[in-house]
């Protein structure tokens, strides 16, 4: 009895939705109708299109052996005539697929409007295939720190109905261009996304490696196929460069590659060589100029115990220098840093 009277308390009654079609639906339709009525002649528009409504283009400029069957299957059959080429292409595609899973397609593919909802791709075949691969075969998994990461799990029985649900943003050309213009547009769409130069990639890689290292983490091959769009075997070559980047000879060649003075293959050659061979190669390529001084810098780590720093400095210095160090405000991190640098110089002078 008590509970009943409680639920019937005024003000607790749930307000029922009004009858009939919801005003949100009506407003949405009204918006569309207003847009259609005022529509003017247009070259293109951006549309969210389900994958099933996208038709691939067979005559695209990029030579591409992979077909949709391969993507649905998630692997290349060994009996396939183009097994080798296709495997390489699939490996590259997986890289793209990983980044699409993480960030989506940043550059919408170009397509031509067909009657009804369908569109015909002019460019971005690879992106669309990578997208399909990502919905079928890439899963986001959580690790023990509850950070999500993407993992390839080839699904032998992909759920085809996803093709009718998942949508891609596509730049749709509304009026049919002539054949020549169509080809040119497809070419431009592919050219616009021409890969970064080796120098650009290398510069990014080195700074990325340094930043990862300062966080105490190493780069994995997966990071590289994601972002550089390279195959797994290529990724290992890039990793070798990262590992030996502190070697003086390698460092010099890296700098030269970045400034486009030396080819990337020379860098790979010197990375693979041992120390003796590196010197030989270096001398062979760059004449008898002396090898650069081997300066190694050491990061001395970080401490928040500034008092310990002060004690260390004061117990190891004497006389006027000690007075100077005593006058420094060691509680201020900036002064402490400067003071410690001065102390190191003093120490080097004293002990060599």
């Amino acid at each position, binding site marked *: 009895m008590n509970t009943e009277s409680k639920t019937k308390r005024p003000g607790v009654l749930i307000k029922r939705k*009004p*009858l*009939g*079609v*919801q*005003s949100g*639906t*009506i*407003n*949405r*339709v*009204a*918006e*569309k*109708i*207003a*847009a*259609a*009525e005022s*529509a*003017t*002649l*247009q*070259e293109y*528009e951006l549309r969210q299109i389900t994958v099933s409504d996208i*038709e691939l283009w067979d005559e695209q400029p990029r030579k591409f052996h992979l077909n949709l069957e391969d993507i649905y299957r998630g692997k290349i059959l060994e009996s396939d005539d183009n097994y080798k080429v296709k495997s390489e292409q699939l490996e590259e595609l997986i890289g793209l697929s990983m980044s699409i899973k993480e960030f989506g397609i940043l550059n919408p593919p170009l397509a031509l*409007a*067909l*009657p*009804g*909802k*369908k569109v*015909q791709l002019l460019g971005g075949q690879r992106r669309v295939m990578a997208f399909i691969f990502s919905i079928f075969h890439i899963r986001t998994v959580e690790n023990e720190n509850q950070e999500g990461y993407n993992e390839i799990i080839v699904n032998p029985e992909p759920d085809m109905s996803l093709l009718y649900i998942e949508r891609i943003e596509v730049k749709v050309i*509304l*009026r*049919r*261009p*002539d054949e020549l*213009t169509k080809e040119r*547009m497809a070419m431009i769409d592919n050219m616009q996304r021409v890969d970064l130069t080796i120098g650009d990639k290398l510069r990014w890689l080195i700074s990325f490696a340094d930043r990862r290292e300062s966080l105490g983490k190493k780069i994995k091959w997966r990071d590289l196929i994601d972002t550089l769009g390279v195959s797994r075997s290529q990724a290992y070559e890039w990793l070798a460069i990262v590992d030996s980047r502190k070697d003086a000879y390698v460092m010099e060649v890296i700098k030269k590659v970045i400034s486009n003075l030396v080819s990337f293959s020379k860098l790979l050659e010197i990375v693979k060589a041992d120390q003796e061979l590196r010197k030989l190669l270096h001398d062979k390529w760059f004449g008898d100029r002396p090898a650069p001084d081997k300066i190694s810098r050491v990061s001395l780590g970080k401490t928040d115990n500034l008092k310990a720093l002060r004690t260390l400095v004061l117990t190891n210095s004497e006389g006027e220098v000690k007075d100077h160090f005593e006058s420094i405000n060691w509680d201020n991190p900036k002064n402490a840093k400067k003071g410690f640098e001065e102390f190191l110089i003093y120490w080097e002078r004293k002990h060599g």
Partner: protein
Amino acid sequence: MSREQTIIPTYSNLKVLTISNHKGGVAKTTLSKLLTEYSVREGVRVLGIDIDPQCNFSARFLEMTNDGMDPPLHPNFDPKDPLWDELPYSPPGYWSIAQFFRLGYVEPYPTNIPNLHFIPSHKKELTNFLEQVERKSVQEAVVDHMRTMLSIEYYQEEFDLVIIDTPPQTSALTASAARAATHLLIPTEMQEDSIAGMADMAQLWQAENQTREAEKLMLVGILATKFDPQSAAQRRTLEQVSQNSVLGDKLIQPPMRYLQTYANSSSTYANPRSLFEMHENTPARIEAEEFCKIIFERIFR
């Protein structure tokens, strides 16, 4: 960027009305039949075109064979005439919209009504054609086809109004009807799915207008069909739509209520032959005359 302009053939005076909604069962065909009868009675020369494989619009005005799925033999058909044998299709003797799409030519059927001609549908052939279109990606050609045909002199001179009944789906055929049309009429039920379905229709309409420089596709209006005044939900929806700043102007009043009467009156052997031959006090007739009049005037204003 230089582009080949999409040149849309122009009509001199011909009006082409496409009745379309991607949602099925919203009384598109019933409305097509009523409007055809009404327009004919108003004295305009009408050509009815049925592109719905269900052939119901065709069956209203022609004696379809094979359970209403195939068109009858064409009255001009003469088995002894060698010209028929030269035609590149078989079996000879009839024309349907499927032949029109395939061969680019069709001979409209005369009907019992003097100023009404008709191009019927053909269930099997049209369905086959649709499947081929899906596969061959020749849709672009199909889309322009109907407009190209209607712009030839014969149709421009012989007819004032073309009424096209469409199937409830998005296909090259529906797009073809939209391309051919000068006017668009959207019937809809006053319920969630049908109203939401109009958004798809608007998308097609917008895409069509984005390809036209002049002679934009005009919306004649939205007609509420199968309206039940007893239903509070439908009454409220109708009120909301009529108060909406965009949809309010488009809404055609009164809504269509007497669907059953319309269906009975338009069956093949109905007596009287037409709703408009019923007693003038019949509520269904009064209602139909009201909304048909508005639609007719909006087309020919």
